[in-house]
Every structure is written in C-alpha cells, then in structure tokens.
C-alpha cells in the first residue's frame, strides 16, 4: 500500500470509517506514516497548551449585572404567565378539584321540581369544602414544620428550608385559586383567612433555600405573630363540621358561609 496522505490520517483520527482498517494495518507496519500520524497528534496536544484564564466562579453573576438593565421587559398576557411548569402543577391540582366540583354539580340527578338546582349546588359545595380542607391541611403542615423546628440545637450555620419553600410556592398558587372562588361565593371569613395564609406562604416561598438561624427565627416569629396556624385550624374544624353536618342535616348547608362570616 502507498503511504497514507495527511488528509487520510486526519480523517482516520476523526474516526471516519472509510478505509479505516486498511489505514490501521498500514500504520501498524509503516514507521514513516506512524511518525506522520504522531506529528498530527502533536498539533492537537499543542492546542491544549493554550491556557484560558478562569473568569472565576462569580463570572455568571458579573455577566448578569452587565446585561440585566439591557433586557427589555416581556409583555405577556395574564394567561401566558400562568403557563409556567411550576404553576401548572399547583394550578392543575387545584383546578382539577374545582372542575370536579362543577362537574359533580352538573351530573347530579334532579330529584323533585326545583330541588335539582339546590342539590347540584350542595354537591358542588361539598367537593369544594373537601378541596379547601385539604389545602388548609397541607398549609398547616408546612407552617407547623417550620414553627416546631429547633435550629438552635442543630449547631448548623445555615438551615436548609428548600423543601418547605418549594411546598409553600405550590400552595401559594392553589391558595390564590381558592381565595378567588371564596370571593365570588361571598365567603368573607374564608377570603380573610386565605388572604392571611397567602401572605405567610409567600414569605416562606420567597425566602432563600438556606437561611441563618436568625433569619429562621424571623420566619417563625412571623408565622406566630399572624396567628395563622390557629385560624387555619379553626376554619378546618368548621369545614369538617360543615362536611359532617351535610351528611346528617343537608337542609342547613346553604347557610354555612354566612354563618362563618358572622363568626
């Protein structure tokens, strides 16, 4: 076989399959071509000697500072803003429950005369009561975990609250949906509780994922100062009683939001 050309050796190095075996066999036998191949390889090795200065770990932050002011605000509709994966998950769960509530209301069979509308409303409200009750239960859990944690004993410089933070983020989205529903149904007491809950959840959601013991204590104090845990528990109890009351005395159902407003 003739000597291998520079281009063929380069293609061989690049992993090209055409004539690969023949070139490999030739390289095995031919000192001259092997030396030529080694010289090509030296070029690639020499390329690696060219240093690239390390811009540092904070370089990305520096770039952000340099360009942030030059990034125009994106104009998006309110609906577009909702189509963000994180929100979609939270909203999906809440919206599914709301949809279920309305669907159950629609398919409820009429019993007598004007009773069908009243029955559909009752079923719809029952599903909503269960959904809001679950939401409050989940919120209570997050806030309780934060309130009961004892960072002083942990001996750590930073406390990781990323799990609670993520859960709070999702709950904020759900909370908004339920609050809007409560607003449209005129349940002012529920609106007020969900409103306060939202503020506390937002505080947690917007905290860094790792906080100092002092920051953690501030979060705990904020939860305690609002008395939100107690309010959430009271509403939960009311909803539970309401739900049980529906099973035993359905005729009084439609009075419940008003009664709660009074309370």
């Amino acid at each position: 076989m003739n000597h291998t050309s520079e281009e063929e050796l380069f293609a061989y190095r690049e992993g090209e399959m055409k004539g690969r075996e023949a070139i490999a066999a030739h390289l095995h036998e031919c000192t001259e071509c092997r030396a030529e191949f080694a010289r090509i390889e030296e070029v690639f090795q020499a390329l690696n000697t060219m240093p690239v200065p390390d811009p540092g770990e904070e370089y990305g932050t520096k770039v952000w500072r340099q360009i942030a002011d030059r990034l125009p605000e994106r104009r998006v509709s309110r609906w577009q803003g909702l189509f963000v994966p994180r929100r979609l998950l939270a909203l999906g769960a809440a919206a599914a429950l709301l949809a279920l509530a309305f669907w159950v209301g629609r398919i409820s069979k009429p019993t007598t005369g004007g009773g069908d509308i009243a029955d559909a409303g009752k079923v719809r409200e029952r599903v909503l009561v269960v959904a809001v009750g679950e939401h409050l239960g989940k919120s209570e859990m997050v806030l309780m975990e934060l309130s009961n944690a004892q960072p002083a004993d942990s001996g750590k410089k930073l406390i990781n609250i990323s799990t609670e933070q993520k859960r709070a983020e999702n709950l904020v989205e759900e909370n908004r949906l339920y609050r809007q529903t409560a607003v449209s149904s005129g349940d002012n007491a529920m609106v007020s509780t969900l409103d306060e809950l939202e503020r506390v959840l937002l505080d947690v959601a917007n905290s860094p994922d790792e906080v100092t013991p002092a920051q953690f204590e501030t979060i705990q104090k904020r939860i305690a100062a609002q008395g939100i845990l107690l309010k959430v528990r009271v509403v939960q109890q009311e909803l539970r009683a309401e739900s049980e009351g529906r099973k035993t005395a359905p005729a009084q159902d439609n009075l419940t939001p008003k009664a709660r407003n009074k309370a």
Partner: protein
Amino acid sequence: MAEAFGGYDAGGITDADAIARTLGGEREAYRVLVERHSNYVYRLAYRMTGNSHDAEEIVQEAFLRGYQKLQQFAGNANFGTWVYRIAANYAIDRLRQRKNDESRRESPSKPAEGELEVDPLSRLKDPAPSPERLANSAQLAEKMKEALQALTPAERTAIVMRHWDGCAIEEIAAVLKSNSSAAKNTVFRAVQKLRLALKPFAEHRGAAKAVGNES
C-alpha cells in the same frame, strides 16, 4: 450550596423551568441561565478571540441575543448548546468584520483577502524558531495563540468547536453556514496551518515518539 436570589434557587431550577418563567414575564429567571452557562460560553469566546476583553463582550452579546430570541428556542434542545451557538455565530461575524476592517486599513501591497486565507502563516512573527526555543511550554502556548490568530475566522471557529468542545461536524457547518463536507475541510485546513506553524516543535517531538514506538 445552591445559591438563592430573588426567590430563585439556581441549584434547584431546571433550564426548562427558567426558560418558561422568563417567557412568562419573570425577567429575573433568565439570571439562572446566565449564571449557569456563562463560563462555558466564555471559554469558547476566549479561544476564538484570544483575549479577555473581546471574549467578555461576546458572552454579554450572546446572552442578550439569547433573551431576545428565547421565544424561538426549541424546547427539545439544550439551552447551553443553543447559547453556545449564538456566541459562536456572533464571534465569527465579529472576527470577519474585524478582518475586513484591518484589510481595508492595510497597504495595497498586502495580499488580497483570498490570498490571506491561503497563507496566513506569513503573518506570524517568527515562522521557524528552533525546537529548543519552542520546547518551553509557555512559548509553545504563545506560538499556538499566534497561529490561531493567523487562521481565518471560519478555520478558527471550526477548530475551536471541534477540538475543544467536541462539536459535531453538522453543528460546525450550521455555524459556518456551509455543508458538512466543507466544514470538515475547514477543520482539516486549520489543522494543516497550525501544523505548519508548529512544525519545528511537532516534528521534533513526533519523530522522537515514532522512533520510540518502533524500538
């Protein structure tokens, strides 16, 4: 530790999530992408330009363009690769523009642009220093830097993308706006020129290695 800023946890948020949030109007979410991919883009830009000042400008411009074109970003691609390509495109345009400006300023006795591409090594300060001198790795690095500067913008882009970043020939072709065969030839031409520029050193070492293998 994951860095948190403005409610965003850079360690916990995925590129896809950051893109979706940015498109949803949360400008701050773009910061995650900038912080995550800047160093990678910087390395490409530095190798293409050979200096920090130009490299930093390319990085900034790449992320600005990325933000403006984010709507066009195909979700199935990798954001890092996408912004890398934007940087490579911008860098090659910039190098070409600079070369054209330099050509215009140079005296008429200089070769035309096409001729420059055939023999850029004529621009090297010292085309054939002794092997002893080149044996020093710092000098070799300096020599390599000069040799890279002497390549055409297309050749430099091709060799940087291929050798350092392991890009596929098709990706290089997309940046060079050519076909795969032409892109492959461009890489080969770049290697040929670098080899010529480093000939004394490479031959000295390569021959020694070949002899060593033989014995």
